[in-house]
Structure formats: C-alpha cells, structure tokens
C-alpha cells in the first residue's frame, strides 16, 4: 500500500474538537455505569445463554442449542401466543379509552375536566404490584364486591379467577392501570395543536365529532404511534399482574403463562439459569422485531420516515 498524499504536519486541534473532548469527560461517569450495569450483565447473560446446564448432566457449551430449544418449546411458544392474544385485545382497549378520554377532556374546559383528568391518571400513579393486589381482592369470591352485587339479583357471581375468566380479568387490570397514562400523552399532543385550525374547521361547517375524527386524531398520530409502541412492548413483557394473581389462582395461571414469567420461573424456581437467559434473549429479540415492524409500517404517521 502506498500513500498518495503525505500529511504535512499534524493537524491543529480545532476549538470545536477540544470542546467535544470535554463533553466526553462529562459523559464518562454515565457511560461507565451504563457499561457496568447494563452492557456487562447483558453480555454475561448472552454468554450464559450459550451454555446448557442440566441438573444431572453438568454444564457444557451448547452454542445456539438453547435458542433452538426455545423456539420449539411449546411453553415458550404458548406464552408468546398468549401475549399476542393479550396485545390484540389489550392495546386497542387501552387506546380507545385513552383517546376517548383525551378528546372529551380536550373539549371541556371546566374544573370538572381537571379533576377527571387527575382521576383517570390516578391508577397509573399506583405501583403495578399494589394495583394488581387491589384487583385481586376485588376479584376475590369472598371479599370482592361482585358477590354482593350479584346477590342483590339473586345470582351467583362469576369466578373472576377461574381459567375461563382470567384473561378478561387481566385485560381489565392492565387497561385500568395504563389508560390514564396514555390519555395524558394523547392529551398533551392535543393541547399543542393550534386552536385556529379548529376555528377554521368550524367556519367550514364541521361539528365537534368531525373535528375530533378528521382533524384532531390525524394531527396527533405520531403520539398515538408512541403510545402503541409502549403498549406493544409492555404487553410482550407482561409479568407483574399475572404473577400477583398467580398467588390466588395458581391453577389458572401456570408458571409459563407469559414468556417473562417462564424465564423467571426457569431461573429462580427451577435453577435453569442458562436456558432462562436464552428465553429472555429470545423474548428480547421478538420485542425488538415486533416494535421494529410496527414502527416501519407506521413511519409515515409517526414522522419517522
């Protein structure tokens, strides 16, 4: 190899580059901690997932064996299927509640709307575990209000924790918990729209419903994409609510109910740390692919194109 041009002297360090160096200095503590507590554990988990260890057989290098096993494991696939089904029901439910509430609150400008906004948002302020525990008491056949209410009509209350009802019970908890948070995001986006547009529409003869559906919703599509992305990731990683309810409905919610729960059970209850790492990574990959596909198809609405 030959060089065509010889550098005459070392280039002088520009002021801008000097500044960049100081920037690095400020970022270093973050990067160090990020590396130590995120990259290193992640790398270690990835490394662990390449080994296979059994109770009686000891540990050996397995390459991608655990991943092959994961994607042929009926429990993992079943869990993926289940969270997908949850997503199909839960995400639209959360979205409809959030958007409806935001649109209504946007039109009202009274003290009542402020209080309502706070009330709808309140469930999000409650820690997920506490929320799930609270609902598990509401669902309880003995303490729950349902049994009392049904008794007034001389009927027996449905068992919210039975295997046939548990799906709906979980959807209800998650929607209750998150709709308020999404509502705030959508509401904030609505507030940033210039009211002059509505005025123009009204002069053109549009009524409130038209304005909501034809103007407001399209104009906040990028924040809705964000909301759906959050909801999608959250649903695929579904964990806390079913874990809390499992303590009351161990039969209806098995240890592999969602992929995250499966990884948790494998690691901490069945001592299969290697396979648990592989399951966790497989889920991570699916979450990444899922959100990527979603963001790709909505790149126009989200303004990412």
């Amino acid at each position, binding site marked *: 190899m030959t060089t065509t041009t010889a550098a005459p002297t070392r280039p002088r360090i520009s002021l801008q580059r000097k500044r960049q160096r100081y920037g690095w200095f400020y970022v270093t503590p973050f990067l160090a901690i990020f590396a130590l507590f995120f990259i290193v554990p992640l790398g270690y988990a990835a490394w662990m997932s390449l080994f296979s260890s059994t*109770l009686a057989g000891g540990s050996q290098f397995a390459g991608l064996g655990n991943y092959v096993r994961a994607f042929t494991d009926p429990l993992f696939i079943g869990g993926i299927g289940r969270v997908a089904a949850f997503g199909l029901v839960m995400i639209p439910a959360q979205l409809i509640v959030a958007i409806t509430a935001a649109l209504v609150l946007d039109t009202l400008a009274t003290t009542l709307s402020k209080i309502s906004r706070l009330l709808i948002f309140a469930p999000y302020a409650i820690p997920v575990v506490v929320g799930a525990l609270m609902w598990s008491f509401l669902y309880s056949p*003995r*303490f729950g209000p349902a049994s009392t209410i049904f008794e007034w009509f001389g009927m027996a209350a449905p068992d919210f924790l039975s295997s046939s009802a548990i799906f709906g019970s979980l959807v209800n908890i998650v929607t209750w918990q998150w709709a308020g948070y999404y509502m705030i995001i959508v509401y904030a986006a609505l507030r940033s729209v210039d009211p002059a547009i509505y005025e123009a529409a009204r002069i053109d003869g549009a009524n409130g419903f038209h304005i909501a559906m034809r103007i407001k919703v399209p104009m906040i599509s990028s924040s809705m994409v964000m909301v759906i992305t959050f909801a999608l990731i959250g649903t695929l990683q579904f964990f806390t609510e079913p874990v809390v309810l499992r303590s009351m409905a*161990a*039969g209806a919610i*098995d240890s592999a109910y969602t992929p995250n729960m499966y990884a948790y059970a494998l690691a*901490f209850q*069945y*001592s299969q740390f290697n396979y648990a790492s592989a399951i966790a990574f497989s889920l991570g990959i699916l979450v990444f692919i899922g959100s990527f596909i979603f963001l790709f198809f909505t790149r126009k609405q989200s303004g990412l194109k």
Partner: protein
Amino acid sequence: MKNRLLASGAAVAVAAVALTGCSGDTQASCTNTITKTDAEQVTVWAWYPAFAQVVDLFNETHDDVQICWTNAGQGNDQYSKFSTAIEAGSGAPDVLQLEFEVLSSFAIRDALVDLSEYGANDVRTNYTDGAWEDASSGDAVYAIPVDGGPMGMIYRADIFDEYGIEVPETWDEFADAAQALKDAGAPGVLADFPTNGRAFNQALFAQAGSTPFVYDSANPQEIGIEVNDDGAKEVLAYWQDLVERDLVATDDAFTADYNTNLVNGTYAVYIAAAWGPGYLGGLADADEDAVWRAAPVPQWDTANPVQINWGGSSFGVTSQSDKPELAALVAKEIFGTEEAWEIGVDQAALFPLWTPVLESDEFAQKEYPFFAGQKINEDVFLEAAAGYEGFTFSPFQNYAYDQLTEELYAMVEGQQNADEALDTLQDSLEQYATQQGFELLN
C-alpha cells in the same frame, strides 16, 4: 489524550466496582447485635420471627463463635436468593434454614455440605428416624432437623355439634361426614382440597402408600419416578369424587380467601400439620364462637395406621462457607438446648424434632389455650410424629409441585379424571427428568 481519556474512564469504572463491591465479601450486616466481637462469626439465614431470641441465646452461651443472623425471606423467597448465590459463586451464608423438601434440589447442585463429615452422626440419636431420614440421603446428611409437621385433623367442635357430625376416624367416615354436613344444610363444607396444596397433597397420597420418587444422592444421576402409583390414584379418585359431589371446596391454599374460610367456619375441618394451630392463631378475624379441637388424621385402614408429615425445616451448611466446621457446630447446637426449644415451642409454635424436648413429659402435657386447654401433642401429634417414617423428595421438587398443581386444577375443572391427571403428571416429570440428564430407574 485518548489514553488519558481511557484511563479516566477506567478509574471511574474501578471506583464504581469498589463502591458496589465493598458489601460483598467483607463484614456482612447482621439483624442481631453481636457483643462478643472477637469471636468468629457464622452467618445464618432463617425466617422465624422468634428466631431473634434463639440467636441471642446461642450467642450468650458461646464464646468461640457468634451467629450473625439475617432474615432473607420465607421459603421460596429465601431459596431464590440462595439459588442465585450458588449460580454466582458467592453471597450465600454459612448456615441456612431449609425445608426438607428442597434438600435434594440443593444437594444435587453441590450447594450443601455433607454434615456427616462434621460430626452430624454424633447428634443422630437426638432425632426420630423419620426426621433423620428426611434430612439425609443414603449416608450423606444434608441438614440438622429442627421442626416437623406431623399431620392431624383440626376441626370445629361447635359446627360438628350443631349439625350432629361425628369425628371421622377413617376417610370413608370423612366422606360420610361431608355428605351429612351438606344434607344438614350447613352453609360451609367439611374441608378444602387445594389444587395448589403441593406438599399437603403429596402427603395425602403418601398416606395410601404412594412413594413417588426413588432417589439416593449416592447415585445423583438416577431417579425413579412413579407419581401415578396405586396409592396416589386411589387418594386422588377419592377427592375427585368429593369435589364432584360438591362436598369439599377447591380454593387455593394460603390465599386471603382461604385464610378467611379457615377461621370463619366455611371449612369445618382443617387437615393440618402440627404447625397448623400456630398458623390459625396468627390469622385475624377469627370466629368468636369457634371451638377448636384436634384429632388424628383419618386413616385408610385403622388396623394399619399411616402417619404423614407436611413441612418442617432444618439447618444446612452451604458449600460456600469458608468455616464449615464452625457452621456445622451452629447447625447442630442452635436448636440443641431446652432453653432454645422453650422459645421455639412457646413463641414460634414449632413442633420440635429434637427428642429431649419431643419426648419430654412437659411437651406431651402442654395445654394449648387455642384448643381450650386440650393436650394436642399427647392426643394427636406425638403419635403422628413417632409413626412417621420419612419421605423421599425429587431433586426438582419445585417443578414437580408446579406440574402437580396444573394437573389437579385441570381435574377439578372437569377436564380430566384423577387417573388421567396423574398419568399426565408422570409423563411430564419423566420427560423433564430425561431432559435434565437423569437416568430413569423403574
């Protein structure tokens, strides 16, 4: 410049490691206060609330060794931490409390020291055969027994009187009593059959002669599995029948609902272990009119009674301990005095496996205020403890229990019968064992 940057980055990283790493291997924090700071310390994880007094007692009476106690959570919470520590290679205490059912699961991971090398057999005579059998496998001793769970039947004498129910001595009479209670129009049921009963359900099966696992730590790669033997099938078919006739409830155990049903009379009978009265005593909102009595657990064949056990715990020494000899001494001696057991029995409602107390007149004659002064040890639990012959658990007991729960749930939901439930369980456990590298006996 680049090098200096790297160096400063490295310095920050090192500082971060030092900050987080310092709590790991130096002085551990203890819940108790240690006054004899010169003595060597042994770290212990245990969960009884009354354990603080036992620790203080031990520390007062020992000058060469002091216990540093931490409550790392009860049962599975503590096991998760221990399991993670094993995987990480550090972080486990010297000694920890373990239920008998998990000993094999930890032994197979080389997490526990074989205490027979540290004089465990010297104290062997202080324990019943059944208790020692539960704490050991073959010649190896994995833990020193502490408390046990010999089973009996606790019942509501007031409900029995009100509806004219006789105290059942056999399971046939038990079924009749359940029917009689329903026919008499009682608002509750005779008992609960929890599908998540885990050790409880397994104990019921064992009473009819079910021995689901054959396992010896001398040959850790071999396991015999027969969860669908005749005993288990007979017992499960019996309960399936009661469930189908609506004579028993099928609520999950240890939930808020279950606890309420226990104390408000919804269940007239609580088939319980010796720690059951202590558990009941700790529950709120008990029925004021409740009159509790204890009776022996019903039998399949009164001519050949079989005693069973539910729960109970022991102290094991972890393989991460750098002073196994001292740790073994702690495991042997912590519940090896009458003073310690006075606290254990009175404060923590433990059922001792240590024979000097277990076989003492004082324990036999102890009157329990909860049972209006009934001598429940003499009447029920001492005989149950003496007749118990031990049980072999699998080295993947947690998995086995989870699967059992699923199959029993499918049964009470009407998706399968008792035989199918146990056959499916057998298949799934065989498959799991093979996949975990075990060779199946049979």
